[in-house]
Structure formats: structure tokens, C-alpha cells
């Protein structure tokens, strides 16, 4: 089994585990971690794509690496935003469950609606 195949299987496993966690786990923090695992699997896949470019007589394909860097930044920002929302929710509501009652009409917002 070549290194590319091993990495490919690892990427598939990370994507699968991340998907399972994101869908099945009820806790938001674990969902966020699962999202990161899922993202790592996808980034690993980009890395493998770059390695295959290396097999085709290039030194290494640089484009997937640039894409991965960008993707990591995006995933980091997404995680930061999600954690900020989660912390704020915990401060206000004292719990972090997602399955609360549906938002009612804003009681003290005279101009919103």
C-alpha cells in the first residue's frame, strides 16, 4: 500500500468521524470539534492531491498547499466565531444546549420586529 493510499484512507476516516460527530453529537462544543476534524480530513485530501502532482514529474503541486492554507484560515475563523457565540450563550443562558424553545417575538425591542 503506497503512502498516498494510506493518507487517503486516513482522510476518509477523518471525514467520516467528523460527519458522524457533527450530526449525532448533541453538544455544540463537540460539534465544533467534529467540524474541525472533518475539515482536517478535507485538508489532508488536498495534501494528497498535491502529492499526486508530485508524481506527475512536478516537484510538488503548490496550488493545493495554497488552498489548504486558505482553508485553514477560514476554518479557524469559523471556529473562533462559533466559540464566541457559544461562550456568549453560556454566559446568558447558563447552558449550551441547541434545542431550546424557538425564539419568541422580541419583548423589549420597539423598533425591530
Amino acid at each position: 500500500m503506497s503512502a498516498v493510499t494510506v493518507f487517503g484512507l486516513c482522510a476518509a476516516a477523518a471525514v467520516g468521524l467528523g460527519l458522524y460527530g457533527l450530526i449525532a453529537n448533541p453538544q455544540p462544543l463537540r460539534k465544533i470539534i467534529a467540524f474541525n476534524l472533518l475539515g482536517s480530513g478535507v485538508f489532508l485530501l488536498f495534501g494528497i492531491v498535491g502529492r499526486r502532482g508530485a508524481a506527475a514529474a512536478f516537484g510538488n503541486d503548490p496550488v493545493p498547499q495554497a488552498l489548504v492554507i486558505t482553508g485553514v484560515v477560514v476554518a479557524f475563523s469559523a471556529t473562533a466565531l462559533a466559540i464566541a457565540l457559544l461562550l456568549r450563550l453560556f454566559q446568558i443562558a447558563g447552558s449550551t444546549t441547541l434545542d431550546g424553545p424557538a425564539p419568541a417575538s422580541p419583548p423589549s425591542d420597539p423598533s425591530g420586529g
Partner: protein
Amino acid sequence: MLPPAPVLVTTAGGVLLVLSIALPVAGILLAFAFGERYVRQVAFTVMPAGLAIAAAVLVLLPRSDGHLVYLLGAWPPPLGVALRADGLSAVMLATTAVVICAVAIFAATDFRPQAAEARAPFALWILLLAIWGALNTIFVGGDLFSLYVALELLTFAAVPLVSLDGRAETLRAALRYLLFALLGSVLYLLGTALLYGLYGTLDIVLLSHRVSAESGVLIAAALMTSGLLAKTALFPLHLWLPPAHAGAPAAASAMLSGLVVKGSFFILVRLWFDAMPGLPGLAAAQLLATLGAGAIVFGSVVALRQERLKLLIAYSTLAQIGYLFLMFPLAFGASGKLENDQALAGGLLQAVSHATAKAAMFMAAGSIYAGLGHDRITGLRGVARALPLSVLAFAIGGIALMGVQPSGASLAKELLLQETARTGQWWWALVLQAAGMFTTAYVVLVLSHALAPSDQSIALVGRAPLGRDLAALALALCSLLLGLLPWNSYLPVRYGPTSSLFGIDALPKLLLPVLGGAALAILLSPWPHPLGSSAAWKALIRVAGPLRRGCLGLSSLVVSGDDVLRQWSAAGISLLLVALLLAALMFAAS
């Protein structure tokens, strides 16, 4: 139709595309630099310039052969990144600019600097500009990875809009939205990784020349499509949409429903029509349209049972999103390939008219809420006298959405109906007619409550400034008059826009949806009508009573089904199922 030969040079006027992205971003940076006190001045300086850029693109596009291209750093694809604009982008750029400006005028009086929540107005202006910049990037982005980044920027700008007032429920709604959107975008990114691995490029024009129906491409297409469906909130992946609208301010809802969901829809159009037009996708397109038909029935029935005006409009958005997907099976030409033709023009026109009309309706609902202090539909009696302009804006927006001539929705419906006849898919014609009736039903329902005469005058808790109503009214009128514009230069519309406008044959086209809609409103709405004590109403109820009870029972079943589908695990499993089904249908066809 062969895809166009790749244009690998910057065309004249291509710099406009860079400006359309750079301007809102510059506005954000300036707003941060100048701080809260000057944020409105910065925004109102950026708006006219943005409108001018969109107008310049509209003017230049027909003169430069329908394509504007800008190569960043003069690097040609596949190594460099190209920005491209065609007719679709130009139309969407202009729509976005108009809607954003109307929302800004609305919000200028809503979010005063001295409002109680000090940071909310500042955040709203920043997010408004951020949404504008992200959408413009989506409309002119020339490769799938730029589109991914723009899509994420759009999500990051839209999520805080949901929780502007900072209450626990809205934070929860924002977190649900963010997590589900992230799930969708990771699936999209996974698809792009597969495509890059196969073809070594993500540039849309280069891909359109290289893509063939290999198994990897089919899997990538299924993953990307289902990810984008989750972001567009197509039924049954709509778990984030109703709670997101429930607690958001009116200006935020107008943007979320009018513009944000159109971003991912536009990428889906690019993916199917431009990047991979040769896929064996007729069966998959039928699935998309079936989900759309489900969204229309489901969203409309739930909308008719809502107690609050705002949630009614939110669920009607769900139905209208479904309408956008009806164009996919109709766009397949005789060659079995997707054609950039009338069906696409109809779908995009529907997106444009929905963006304008729905933003106007949300803004009108916000004014009504501000005036009454609540937005219960049963409590709207007499509001037409107290807040005539708000109700007028809502009514015109609703009428435009119903597809009354000469609105954009009527032109879109006409184009799609012609395509159903041409391709022989009569069942989608039925769905289109039903969609018109359902839209009419909830507009008629609200108007019948709002226009009912009231004996005593209503006590208003506040009065919206005139500018807000005028912004909503202008946007609604835009939507109503869209059908009169010369679309031929940008979209392949062969239909003469003014033909049979006021002819006698327009009458049944108008009467059929109105009568059907009124019947649906009576049968499906559980609320007592303000004129419920009149003799005519009682006689009507006596005749239609058993049927109405049956319909109400069915619709309450639909509502409980909606509660189940909006559970996190149900939506996640639906997402995976949609992806699997799409892949299976494409594999079976290839």
C-alpha cells in the same frame, strides 16, 4: 451549446469587478477606523459608489461581448485567479446594490446611534457592507475555491445578523445556523478537492472544457450540490431558517431572506450551468425540483398556520426558495445537456423578483411591528388605516410575488411555463400554478386581516419614520415593474415583455391564482377572520366546514412534520440522504 472559449486576458472595464469587491471592504475598514460615530456617513458614502459600479457593469457588459474579465496580478488561470462577469452576474450585482441601499435607508432610521444596545447599530452597518462585499465576490468569482471563500465570508457576515439583539434564543439560532452552514460548506470544499485532484484546476471556464462524467466528478457534484442546498435552506434542510428570522431585526431579515440565500443559490447555478454542463443530471435535476415542489407545499402550508406575520414571511421564503429550483429540469435541452437558456433566465428572474419583493415585505412587517408593538396576524385589524404606507408596501410586494403582470415573478412564471410546454414536463406546470396559488393564499390571508375595517382606532406604540416606509415601498414597486425592463441584453429572454400586458387573455392568468389562493387561505388558515360574524361568512363555513376541518387536520400534521424535520439529527441525516440520492441518480444515468 459549447462552452465559450476561455478568455485569458483582462478586458476593458474588468477593473470594475475588482472595485465591486474592494469598495465594500474598504468601507468596512474605514468604518472601523472612524468608529461608531461616523459609521453611517461611511456607509452612505459607499452606497452611491457601489450603485454606480453596478450600473457601470450593466452598461459596459453588452458592449464587451457579454463578458468582463479581470486577471488578478495578470496571472492567467489555472495558476492565477480570474474574476468574470456575465449577464447573470451583472443582474445579480445590480439587484444586490439596490436591495442593500434600500435596506440601508430603512435601517438608518431604525438603528439610531443612541439606541439602547450601543453596539448593535455599529455591527449592523459593518455586516451590511460585509454581506455586500461577499455577495459581489460570489457574483464575479471565476473559480470554485474563490467561491468557497466568498461563501464562508457571506456566512460569517450573516450569522451575527441573526443574534444582533443578543438574547439567548437568538444566540442559539445563530449557532445552529453557523454549524449547519459549516457542515454544508465543508461538503462543498470536499467536492472542490476531488475536482482539483481530477483536473488540476478549479477555474470554472477551464473546468467546463475538461469535465466529463467520471465517477469522481459525479461524487464531487453530489457533495457540492448538497452542501449548497444546506446553505440555501432548501426543504428538508431548512432547520436554521425559521428560528433565524424569528428574532432578527427587520433589516437583518430583509437581507437574510432577500440576498443571503441567493448567494449559495447562485454558486449552485454556476456549478451546474457553467462548470459542469455536460453531467448526466436530468434525473438529479428532477430530484432538485421535487425537493423544490416539496418546499413550496410544505413552506406554504406551514406559513398559513403561523401566528406571527414575520414567521409567515419567513416560511414563505422557504416556499419561494423551492420555486427557484423548478428551473433545473426545465433547462435540459434536446442534447440532454443543461442550456443557458430561457429556463435559467426564468429562475434567475424569480430570484431577483423574490429578493426585491421579500426584502420589501420584511421591511413593511418591521414597520407594522414598530407601530403596533406586536405582529400577530389576528391583531392586524384596522392597521391599514393606522399605517397605510406600510400595508401598501406589504401589499405591493405580495402582489409582485404572486406573479401579477407586469411583475418580475409573472415574467419568470411565463418563461418557465413555456419551457414546461417545450420539454413536455407538464407536471412542473402544475407545480408552478400551485405555487402561484399558495403565494396568493398567504398574501390574501394577511391583507384580509389588515384591511378589515375596525370600529375603534388602534393605539400605536410608536410610529415608523416616513423614510422606512418609502424604502420598502420603492423596493416593492421595483419588483412589480421588473417585467417591463429590457432583459434581452443580459438574459436569454425571447419573450416580448410588453406583449399581452393588458389584453383580455391576461384576465384568467390573474383570476386563477387569486381565486385558488383565496380558497386555500380559507381552507388552511386556522385563525378566525375579523368578519367571521357576518352572515355570508357563516354560510360559506357551513358549506365548506367538513372540507376545511379535513384540511386543517392535514396542515397540523404538516406542522408537526416540520418540527421533526427541524431537529438537528433529522436535518443532518436528510443532508446525507440528499447527497447519496443525487450521486445515485447521476451514476444510474451515466
